[in-house]
Each structure stands twice: as C-alpha cells, then as structure tokens.
C-alpha cells in the first residue's frame, strides 16, 4: 500500500527523464541533419546524375511562401532540396552571427543591408558576385548591399519613408517645408504636419531628409558610393544650421517629441493631421480609415534636396556555407529572377530591387510608385559599424534640441565630438 505513491513518483520521474532525453535528442537530431554534407559521392558521382544535398535558408514568415515556390522549382531543376527555416526577422542578424561559427548556421538568410557592418566585421558573410546581373538592379539597391568594394547579397526590396498627404485636406504637393506647413495650416487640420518622435531619442531616421536638405550627410562618400568613416560630415556648417532649424521648429511646436509614432499615425488616420512623414508600413491603416492618401516627395527645409535613407532587404550567403555553388545559383538565378522579385513585392508591398520588377510595380500601384520614386533618389543607410556610434548620440541630441534643452549649435557640436570620440 505504501508502494503506491512511491511508484507514482517514479512514474513521473521517469516520464520527465525520458521527455528530457527526447527533447535533447530532438535538438541534436536537427543539428545533425543541417550539418550533413551534400553526399560524399565524389567517387561514384559519375554514375549519378541527380545531385543530392540540402540548402538551409533562414527566412521570415512573410517571405516563406514565395521562397517555398522558388525552392520547389530549384529542387526540380537541380535535385538539391531547400530547407526553409522560419525565423523572426529581427532575430536573424544576431542569430546568424552566433550560429554561423558553430556550423549550425544556414547557407542563406534574409536580412536588411544595414546589418552588413556587423556581419562583415564578424566574418560570417561571404560576397556574392552578381556579375552582369548587377546592372539589372536599381542602383540604390546594389549600392546598399556593397561593403568595402564587395556585393554581399541579392537585394529584393527597397524601403524608405516619404510624405503622406491627406488629399481631401490639401490638394497640391508642397515644394518646401514651409510651404507644407502653410498648406497644412490653411487646411484647418489640428496638426499641419506630424512625424513620430520619441521624447528621448527623437528620430534621426525620419528627420534625416531635412538634415540632408541642409547639406549635412552623416559620412562623406567614396568614389564608389560607399561611406567613409574617416570623413564625418555630421558637424559641417549645414549640420549646425540644421540644429538651429530643429530648435526653431521645436519651439514653434511643429516638431513635438511628445507625438510618438502611434500618436502621429492616429492623428493622420483621424484626419486631424494634413501631412505625415512615414514609411509604407503605416499606409494600410490610413487607407482602412478612409483617408485619401497621396504619396509626395519630402519637401526640403534647407536649399538642397531631401532624400531619405533607403533600407534595402536582401538575401545573403554564409561564409561557412559548404554549399556555395548551389547557394549562389539559388540566389542569383532564382531569388534574382523577375518572377520571385515580383512575388516578393506582392507579399511585402515594398518596391522591388530588380529594375524590371520595379518598373512593373510602379505601374501597378500608385502608393508603391510614390514611395518607389522617392526611394530611387534615396541614399542607402550607412551600414559601416561606425554608424553604431552615431545612432548612440544622434537621437538623444536631436530630442534635446527640439525640447529646447540648451543652445542648439553647442549641443550639436558636442554630439559631433562625442561621435568622433566613439569612432576612435
């Protein structure tokens, strides 16, 4: 009789042990299969026409279906299976960096071009020679995926911000920032213009077009379009002018750090804001709210053009891949094909990187065309690791200037000094 509870305990203990063993085994089993080399068939390969082996591709949920089609085609053509592993897009960079050295990493992964600095510095990514195909992509896309003279991936979409206009309130695109504010005020909207800012970190990404219009990029560019970390342009005359402009707009209440991204979107969707500076991610909800959305070029605040940053998504290759040949073929000939690029555009709603698909998408959709036209003029967001030092200080200083916490020129110069110090 006393044996019973003890037996029960043993049962649970054993169950938990075996469950543990099973999970442990499951993990190592997976590891085994991804590590498998593509068949050691060099000896009997002559008799065997079908290639064997497997490519592992990390992809986010949105892109997985499109890739599955391309993967099916690839397998039918080459006999190499493509194993798609779904990952959270935001996790891929760090996972890739830590998994590739262990040999558990994929052959190919999806990502954003601004990860390149980290990926290259860690030696986990291999160049992909696009060859003649490079000319088939939009310039900004290949430029973005270049790092230190090498192209590191096959780009598939270009993402950038643009000016959204409520066409029921304002019927013409503004030429300058001041004109935009006038038009917005004349329309009777509560807010002539909104942009989501963080009370502590402002938003250098969204404010960058205005900074560019004062002729103050972050870094100077080399001849081949890559950014030169030695040439910090942030602190040039234009930069200081921009800082003063920020302070002015802050005190006038046009830029308001208490209006964060959600509030900006809410106001635009309610029709209480005439213009919103944002990316394509906020368009669906505005259309759903019944706003008559037009996409315009970003009006410059200074006397130069106001190009935003472009973020370019693409697929890249692992430096430790043992299937380089198959992976490169899959990247260049399949992911780089117009069918796949167009299919990726259809699920993501961002302008495709391949020129042929890009042109088609522009005809296809007014909103995408609006963002695409702005994007074609955009500058790639710097991917060099030194950019990390810039992000650390940039936003906090912008927020301080907009909130009127000190002399704008002085704060800006202090920031440039700190950034320069951190880069060294």
């Amino acid at each position: 009789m006393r044996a019973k509870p003890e037996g029960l305990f043993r049962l649970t203990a054993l169950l938990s042990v075996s469950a543990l063993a099973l999970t442990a085994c499951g993990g190592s089993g997976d590891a085994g299969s991804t590590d498998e080399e593509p068949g050691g068939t060099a000896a009997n390969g002559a008799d065997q026409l079908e290639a064997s082996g497997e490519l592992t591709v990390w992809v986010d949920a949105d892109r997985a279906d499109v890739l599955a089609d391309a993967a099916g085609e690839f397998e039918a053509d080459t006999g190499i299976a493509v194993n798609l592993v779904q990952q959270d897009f935001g996790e891929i960079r760090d996972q890739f960096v830590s998994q590739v050295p262990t040999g558990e990493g994929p052959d190919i992964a999806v990502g954003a071009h601004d990860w390149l600095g980290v990926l290259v510095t860690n030696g986990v990514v291999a160049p992909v020679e696009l060859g003649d195909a490079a000319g088939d992509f939009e310039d900004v896309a290949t430029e973005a995926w270049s790092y230190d003279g090498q192209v590191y991936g096959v780009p598939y979409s270009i993402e950038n911000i643009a000016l959204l206009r409520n066409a029921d309130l304002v019927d013409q695109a503004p030429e300058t920032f001041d004109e935009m504010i006038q038009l917005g005020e004349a329309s009777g909207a509560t807010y002539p213009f909104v942009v989501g800012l963080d009370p502590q970190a402002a938003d250098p990404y969204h404010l960058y077009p205005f900074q560019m219009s004062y002729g103050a990029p972050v870094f100077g560019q080399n001849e081949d379009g890559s950014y030169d970390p030695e040439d910090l342009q942030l602190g040039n005359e234009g930069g200081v002018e921009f800082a003063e402009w920020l302070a002015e707009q802050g005190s006038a209440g046009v830029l308001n750090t208490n209006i964060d991204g959600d509030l900006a979107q809410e106001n635009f969707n309610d029709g209480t804001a005439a213009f919103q500076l944002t990316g394509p991610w906020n368009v669906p909800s505005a259309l759903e709210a019944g706003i008559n959305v037009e996409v315009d070029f970003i009006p410059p605040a200074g006397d130069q053009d106001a190009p935003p940053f472009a973020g370019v998504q693409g697929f890249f290759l692992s430096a430790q891949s043992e299937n380089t040949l198959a992976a490169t073929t899959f990247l260049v000939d399949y992911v780089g094909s117009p069918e796949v690029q167009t299919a990726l555009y259809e699920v993501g709603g961002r302008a495709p990187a391949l020129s042929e698909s890009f042109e088609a998408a522009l005809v296809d959709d007014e909103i995408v065309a609006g963002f695409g036209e702005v994007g074609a003029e955009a500058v790639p967001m710097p991917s060099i690791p030194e950019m990390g030092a810039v992000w650390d200080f940039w936003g906090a200083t912008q927020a301080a200037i907009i909130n009127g916490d000190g002399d704008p020129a002085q704060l800006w110069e202090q920031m440039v000094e700190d950034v320069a110090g951190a880069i060294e």
Partner: protein
Amino acid sequence: MSSDTTTSEPKPQPTRKQTRRQRQAARIIDATSMGWKLILFKIVALGLLCATAVYAALVLFMNERWLIGALVVVGAAALTWIYLQRGALPAKYLAPGLVFLLIFQIFVVLYSGYVAFTNYGTGHNSTKEHAVHAIMLQTQDRVPDSPTYQISVLEESGELLASEDLYFAVSTAEGGALIGAEEQPLEPAEGAVVEDGRVVGVEGYEVLPFAELLNRQQEVTNLVVPISDDPNDGYLRTQDGQRAYQYTSRYEYDESADTMTNTETGEVYRDTGEGAFVNQAGEQLMPGWQINVGMDNFVRAVTEESIRGPLIYVTLWTFAFAFISVATTFILGLFLAMAFNDQRMKSRKYYRLVMILPYAFPGFLSALVWSGMMNQEFGFINNVFFGGAAIPWLTDPWLAKLSILIVNLWLGFPYMFLVCTGALQAIPEELSEAAQVDGAKPFQAFRSIKLPLLLTAIAPLLISSFAFNFNNFNLVYMLTGGGPRDVSAGVNVGSTDILISMVYKVAFVGSQADYGLASAFSILIFIIVGTISVIAFRKTKSFEELN
C-alpha cells in the same frame, strides 16, 4: 527505500534477532511490491532514454562534437544507473531536477563566466581559422572592367591515369578555348568544341554536368586558376560553376609565418596575441577571432574612463533604486495587509482581490501602459490629474527616477501585501490581546511584538526582493529605456539606467557588441548581490530561525 518500509504485507518487526531467511523474504517482498507493470514501464522508459542517447551521441560524434557527445553518454549512463539500482532514493528524487539545473542554470552561469575572460564580441566572433577564411573571402577584388567568363568545369578522362583534379575551360573570341587548373595558368587547349560561347568538349577531358558540380561544389568553388604566369593579372574563380570572374587578392596569408600581407602596399599584419592581425601602426584587420584575455575585461570595467564614470553613478542609483523599491513596497504592502486584516473591515475579500490585480498583469505590459500615461503632453496623468500641466515625468532626470519608483511601487506592493497578510495571520491574536491587557498602546504592541515576529518570517523575502529589484531589467527597459540621457555627458547611459540595463547596452545595443565586457559586468553584479544577500542573511539570522 529501505527494506522495512515498503512492504505491503504486515511488516516484520526489525529486531536484531531477524534471521537470514526473514531478511531474504523481506527483500523479495520489497522487490515484488513495485508491481510488474511498473518494472515494465521502467525498462521501456530507460530503454527509450538509452536508445535516444545512443542515437544523439552517434550523431554528435560524427559531427566531431566530442565533449557534448561524451556528456550525453555519461548523463544517460548515470540516469540509467540511478533508476536501475535499488535504494538511492534521494538520487531518484533529485536526478531530473539536477539535469535541468545543469542545462539551464549551471551551464549558463559557467558559460558567461568563461565569456568574461574572452574578447568575445563584434569582430571577435569565432576561431582564427574562420577569421582567416573570412578575410580571404572578403578581400578578393574583382579586376575592374574585366569580363564575365562563361566556364566549363572539366576532369581528365580515361579510367586509370585520370587524376581527380578539376580544370576550367573558357572560350576565346576566336572560337578556340583556354584551359587551366590550380597552379597551371590558362593555356590554349587542343581539340576543343565550343557552342554558344561555352566549351562543351576538350580532347582528353570530360566536361562535368551541373549535377556533378553540385556534388563536388567545395572543390569547384575553391578552385583558383591563374590567368597567366604574372600573378598581378589575377585568377579565375567561380561561385556558381557557370560564370567565372577575374579577381586579385588584397591580402595574402602566409601560413608558416602566420602573417597577412597586403599585396598592394606590402604592409604586413601579424598575430600579436590581440585576437586579430595587427600591422606596425597598430591597425587591426577585421574580422579577428576569439581569444582568452584573462582579467582584461574586469580591469577595463574599473579603469577605462568612459566606463568607470557612468559605472559609479549607475551603481549608486541601482542601490538606491533597489533599496527604496523594497522599502516603499514593503511599507505600503504591510499597511494594507494590516488594514485588511482588521476584523472590523467589511467585504475584505473583495478589496483583497482588487489589491492583487497589479500583480496579476504582466510587469512589462504595465510598464508600457504607464509610460504612455506619463507622456508629458498627451498622458493620462498630466491631462486628467494635473489639468493639462506639462510635467516631464519621464524626461526630467529626477522626475524619471521618481516615476520609475512610483511604477515599481504599483507593481510591487501586491506581493508584499500577500506575504504580509500571510505572515500576520500566522501570528496568534492572543499576543496582541496579552499586550493590551498589559497596557500597551496599539502602536507599541505592533512595534514590539508583531513587527519582530513578522520580520522573522518576511526578512528572507525582503532580501530576495532586493536582489530581484537590483536586476529589474523589464521595468527600466520598458518604462524609460534607461533615459533620459544627459547629452553633454558623452556616454550612452541614462539617468535611470541600472547596472543590468547598462550591461544590456554594452552587450546588445549598437553595432559594437562586447559580450566579454558585459559578462564581466554580470559577474561583478553577481558578486555585489551575493555579498549583500549573505551579509543580510547573517544579520537577520532569519534563515536559521525559519528552519
């Protein structure tokens, strides 16, 4: 289980005069009392465990994961041994827990301990072998304006004499073909058949089909064919087996001397023990590799000016934050517990239920909601309670500190309320009554009788609450993100950053992650928390009294 406690039969009295027979009988009874079903289950479960362990170990050994494979074998053997033998009851109870403890706690702790002594971080991510491989891959520059070569990959034909070497064949403008291999520059090939600009056959060679290339892809992609005898012309290399491009290498790795030489400038980069190739000017060639740096990270944590400055400030605030949080939540929790413990209070049950609500929501969610409510211009607090006053709850350095304490009070008091209620109910009412009879005033009675008794029970919880708040990352991260920052200070640390959120910034924010330094900080935090806890436990002696 000892032989005299698990019998289902009437137990034989364990007397000294027990005969050998009796002992034997007891043993048999004990063995059979388990029941054959259980024995069968035990065998099946252990069999499964061993089978999976053997499979896992085989896979691991094939992948040359010797250590992990050996651990799997040893672990499975140990578990089998524990559950197959008679007795060893404590081990049977503890084994599953110990396994999880080893995997999820001990391993993690040891690993971060190990990382603290390395330079692991951005640029020092892997082994030297990988770093060399990556540098060579990343610094092959395509010769400007060079054409794309449509190539075929060939192998010598014939059964016996054929070597395993691969060849590249490219067509020339005149319709001929060039062939070359490793160490064998391109030269005209005889008897070549060219179709559509691609070589489809060469006498004495066999053109490999694409499927075969896929099977030998490492050989193909590693093949480097010099264009000519002049190394400055570069070499052909293919990534997809169909198109080759002309490259020159920016760096040359000399394996015997262990140096990287820049082929353009002739500059030599040496491995000087810093985990990267370094030239004379001290410039590092990235990527580097992971090395053991000894106590460097700890030394840096306390000597480097850019780290030391904020470290002192952040440490002070972390102590203040943890201490004030514990004090405020405890006082409020105790006050409410006493109020709701009073018999005269009506509907106490419902009030108690409401009190526990903040505890029932996920902490990070509450922190996010609070951060919205504390928005300077549009926040609920300013608009509703302060009539639209623009109080910078989260953007003023001191108010942000206050805000974080207020929110932590809201999040933390229900816990204190619960444990105080429990402890108060365990204190017999007679004690207070006796005090009242003796003429003590209610507060006096509370102070000298209830509070000491209460503290005995609660003190360990206060200490653990202190340790928890010391590392209360969620709240800081979600409410203020460590801000507001003093932009004139020149460091990426805000006025509400506590040690753990600072460690997070060192390790994960920005593009220059430094896991080694972050791990060193974690160890320092552990030492601080550990020391304080030990001292506090000694002081209160509450642990012993609890037992």
